[in-house]
């Protein structure tokens, strides 16, 4: 199995005022293609920091991050932006859609920073919207949609660039249990089709929907073990 993510001895310390707050203290693991990993742990354990580092939004103080065997810790801002654009699909807790744009415009957004014709952009975006079952809502704007629908648009936006990995940061944190299940069903479906997913969560139910769990504490790996996956019905009506 090919390796998608490899992190090696990651250190990251924040300075809040005059106090140094170590967020990651020598963290290492690997993720191979097709895995569905949940990262859990108490608040302040470094989950978000880890996601930012894997997501190429931040630089580690020391240690290395490999994405598709590229050492991204050595890249400059422009190169990181390009990696984010081509290899990473982000899904956020707060959806982070642009409220002024329609669903399909939101999905097209990452493609704007690549090289696609308007026609290609439309076709790709429509295809992924269909995949998350929202083709009929393409022209609606986020404020006109439910939380679950918004998160599905966000997933479509992550998928549209055909990323190497999907990084989801508490994707169900702002959703009711029914919507959460829908979203998790979509992630499971994508994973079954071969997508690699890393998901930060603090809910056990959610972590149980994944295939492997990495438990963090104080910026270090406390446990890394396979999960007996609870499969959800792929109901996308």
């Amino acid at each position, binding site marked *: 199995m090919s390796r998608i993510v490899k992190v090696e001895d990651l250190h990251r310390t924040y300075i809040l005022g005059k106090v140094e707050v170590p967020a990651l203290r020598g963290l290492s693991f690997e993720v191979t293609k097709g895995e569905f990993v949940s990262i859990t742990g108490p608040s302040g354990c470094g989950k978000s920091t880890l996601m930012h580092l894997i997501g190429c939004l931040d630089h580690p103080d020391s240690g290395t991050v490999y994405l598709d065997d590229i050492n991204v810790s050595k890249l400059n801002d422009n190169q990181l932006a390009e990696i984010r654009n081509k290899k990473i699909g982000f899904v956020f807790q707060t959806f982070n859609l*642009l409220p002024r744009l329609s669903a399909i415009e939101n999905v097209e957004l990452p493609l704007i*920073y690549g090289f696609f014709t308007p026609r290609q952009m439309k076709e790709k975006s429509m295809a992924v919207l269909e995949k998350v079952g929202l083709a009929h809502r393409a022209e609606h704007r986020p404020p006109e949609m439910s939380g679950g629908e918004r998160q599905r648009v966000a997933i479509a936006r992550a998928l549209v660039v055909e990323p190497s990995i999907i990084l989801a940061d508490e994707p169900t944190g702002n959703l009711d249990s029914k919507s959460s299940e829908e979203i998790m069903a979509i992630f499971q479906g994508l994973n079954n089709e071969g997508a690699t997913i890393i998901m930060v969560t603090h809910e056990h139910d959610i972590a149980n929907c994944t295939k492997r769990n990495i438990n963090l504490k104080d910026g270090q790996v406390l446990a890394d073990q396979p999960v007996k996956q609870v499969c959800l019905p792929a109901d996308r009506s």
Partner: protein
Amino acid sequence: MTFWEAITMAWKDIMRAKMRSFLTMLGVIIGIFSVISLVTLGEGMKGFMYEQIDKFGTGPTYMEVHGGKEGQLAAMATVKMTLSDAKAIEDRCPSLELVDPRNIQSGKITYLDKSYTSPFISGCSPALMEMMNWGVSQGRFLSDVDVLGRKKVVVLGQDLARKLFGGFPAIGEKVRINGSKFLVIGLFKKKGSIMGVNMDEYVAIPVTAAEDVFDTDKLAEIGAVARSIELVPQAVAEIKTVMAERHGKEDIRVDTMENSMAIMDTIMSALTAIVTGIAAISLLVGGIGIMNIMLVAVNERVREIGVRKAIGAKKRDILVQFLTESVIISLLGGVIGISSGVGLASFIMVIIGMPLVVSFWAILLATFVATFVGVVSGVYPAMRAAALDPVEALRYE
């Protein structure tokens, strides 16, 4: 991100807050509007002046000798020029083709019970006819014999003749000018108004007769025409030499057509400079307004910038996005300013009946300036947006 995508994106953002965008543009609109309308009015005025000078019929070889220094009003001059000065100029200035001494006064002209006060009763010579490209419609113009013989004869403008004689023939009738009887020998052709003076109320009598009836031999001016445009400067020098010799000092000035044009151009440039100053202040204020709004826009969209960066926008993409927006706002303000400026100027020109001259260069410059203001005022906010840290920006509430 392509250029076109940046423009459509910026356009959508501007159109989402139409009122705010319009208010932001207002400074630029006012600045560009004032320059364009005044420059267009000025150009039209200049065109009108040229047209009038052309109508005057004298052409670029024409000049006038006045008493007094450069820039002094002719009427204020105490220097006395006489017929013998004019004669000397005519004899001793080889570069001149025609010389016309003029003894001009206002006076009362009477026929039976009708009288009319004319501001310009002009004692002149036969040369006037050739100089002014005019002509008589009936009878004849003054002759050398009339001048030499100090004959009391008069040529009248059409409007004046109608006022005095109604529909009856004027030639052969006698009118009184300041009490002296003059024989009407001719009527001028219709000429219309030039620079606000109705040429059809012109009264021409022999310059010698004017001396008698006005009781002064002081000339108001001496008109002259050089043999060619190239000889104008030489003719001016010749006139000055002759007059300096006769008066013992240089106490006259020669106003050439070129001079008049130059004076007009000076007035125009001064006007343009003032307007440009006002416009510059307005554009500065407008630019600060745009910068202010762009800073607000950046603050409002910190989260959006974070999202855009997370999904692959480079610093340059964010910079271009905000810069495009400020340039479009400013440029749109410029376009509105230009069209309303030209619109107002055209309206005024049509009302007062002057020719409309729209300066292509002024429009091009205004467009350039508007773009420049957009770039300058957008750079700082756009750079701030581009420099935002994606992690911080995504956390921003």
